């Protein structure tokens, strides 16, 4: 199996299954006779939020991985990881809108303007929406160079997402430290010069 086939037929399904893991775990707990604990809504919120952050960082790990290994084919994983991350963000937001705020726009608005942690999370969510919408191959072609510019929004979105995560902790800020460290490392690795032969990501479609 050559490298491209390995990524496409082995790595891709494995990563897909791993990303599906938290959703399957929640579904099994909710419907499969398991339990989501004493506060099911909180369990759903915490799990989807954490999955979103981890997958967002995994998405941002693809570019440095390609550069360090020279495996251009890893680009195939990036859209899938990014979309999975967005799926969890969307679920996270919907749980908040439905169960916490009973879909009441007035409640959502006041909670957002009065509590910075909600505003920060909301902003991260809004920034990710255009990225998910323009993730199709057709949109990548149509937007051309502008697609790359637009998708730089992933950086502020991740910063806001991490900030949101730190702000929701009751006391212990150390909980989120490792995610901040991971993000910093991923950003620093972008300063590393690409290995010869690694094509820029957009061209790989």
């Amino acid at each position, binding site marked *: 199996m050559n490298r491209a086939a390995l990524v496409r037929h082995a790595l891709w399904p494995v990563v897909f299954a791993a990303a599906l893991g938290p959703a399957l775990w929640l579904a099994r707990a909710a419907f499969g006779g398991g339990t989501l*604990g*004493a*506060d099911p*809504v*909180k369990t759903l919120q915490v799990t989807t939020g954490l999955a979103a952050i981890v997958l967002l960082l995994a998405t941002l790990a693809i570019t440095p991985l390609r550069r360090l290994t020279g495996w251009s084919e890893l680009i195939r994983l990036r859209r899938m990881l990014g979309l999975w991350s967005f799926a969890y963000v969307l679920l996270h937001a919907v749980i908040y809108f439905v*169960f916490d705020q*009973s879909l009441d726009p007035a409640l959502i608005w006041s909670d957002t303007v009065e509590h910075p*942690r909600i505003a920060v999370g909301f902003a991260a969510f809004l920034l990710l929406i255009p990225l998910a919408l323009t993730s199709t191959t057709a949109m990548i072609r149509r937007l051309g160079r502008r697609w790359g510019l637009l998708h730089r929004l992933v950086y502020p979105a991740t910063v806001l997402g991490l900030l949101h995560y730190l702000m929701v902790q009751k*006391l212990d800020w150390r909980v989120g430290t490792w995610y901040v460290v991971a993000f910093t490392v991923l950003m620093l690795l972008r300063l590393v010069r690409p290995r010869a032969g690694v094509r820029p990501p957009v061209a790989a479609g």
Partner: protein
Amino acid sequence: MLIRRAPDLRAADVTDESLYQNRRGFLAGLAAAGVALTLGERRALAQGLAREGGAALRGDDDPLTPFETVTTYNNFYELGTGKDDPARNAGTLRLAPWKVRVEGEVAKPGDYDLEDLLRPHRAEERVYRHRCVEAWSMVIPWLGVPLKDVIARLEPTGRARFVEFTTLLDPVQLPGQKSRSFPWPYVEGLRLDEARHPLTLLATGLYGKSLLGQNGAPIRLVVPWKYGFKGGKSIVKIRFTTSQPANTWAVIAPDEYGFYANVNPAVDHPRWSQARERRLGEYFKRKTLPFNGYADQVAGLYAGMDLARDY
């Protein structure tokens, strides 16, 4: 050989929540069918009927939060910061013998065996709403003695204006105290008139059983119109003071947690709304009531105070 009789308070009769939820019909049905009731069942029936008579103390007809939830979803950082940590780690807590030191502005200071402290008082069951500052809530059938009765016997001096409650400090029994992020031991306090209010309870049990470690065994404070963190757990010291005690959360984060900590939907926590709460077991949030629904009984304590300032 002396066989010490367990005090009435600690007598543990296992009563599960279904019996509690529907004790009258269930037990009456049993009795009608000629089934002999055990002592525990008769006690549960008596307590249940007494409670239904004492509607003022029950406050509402919300179903009780299941025993399983009450004993596995806890904030007791001394036993771990996760909600399920305290239930897992409570085994290290040695509940007997247990002494409570009484000191400060009081005529009868001393080191009391827990049993001696409580024996003269009649244990009561009180079903209270429990509202956490984190915006979740439960309904719990506590067992305990009114704090006012204990205070009356200890005879605070005329100078006493506050009561301070200190949790056990022992990193072996409470391994969470090895963490330096808190100024252990945990301290809570009440104004003397709050402590003497008939609703304020020194709890030693719930669901008709002795308290478990995760719920603050063997003795904890329950102040149903305040956020849950006001209820100090595993108390080893009761001190009567002239000045306002420095309670732990107000020391750690004074802009987020105050001394009074009355449940107040109109005053938000800086990071989240207190207008609504999630009753554990429900999916959608419900409105939070001023003073957790006990305003008729306690609002008078705070007449003339600005509760947005004294949060």
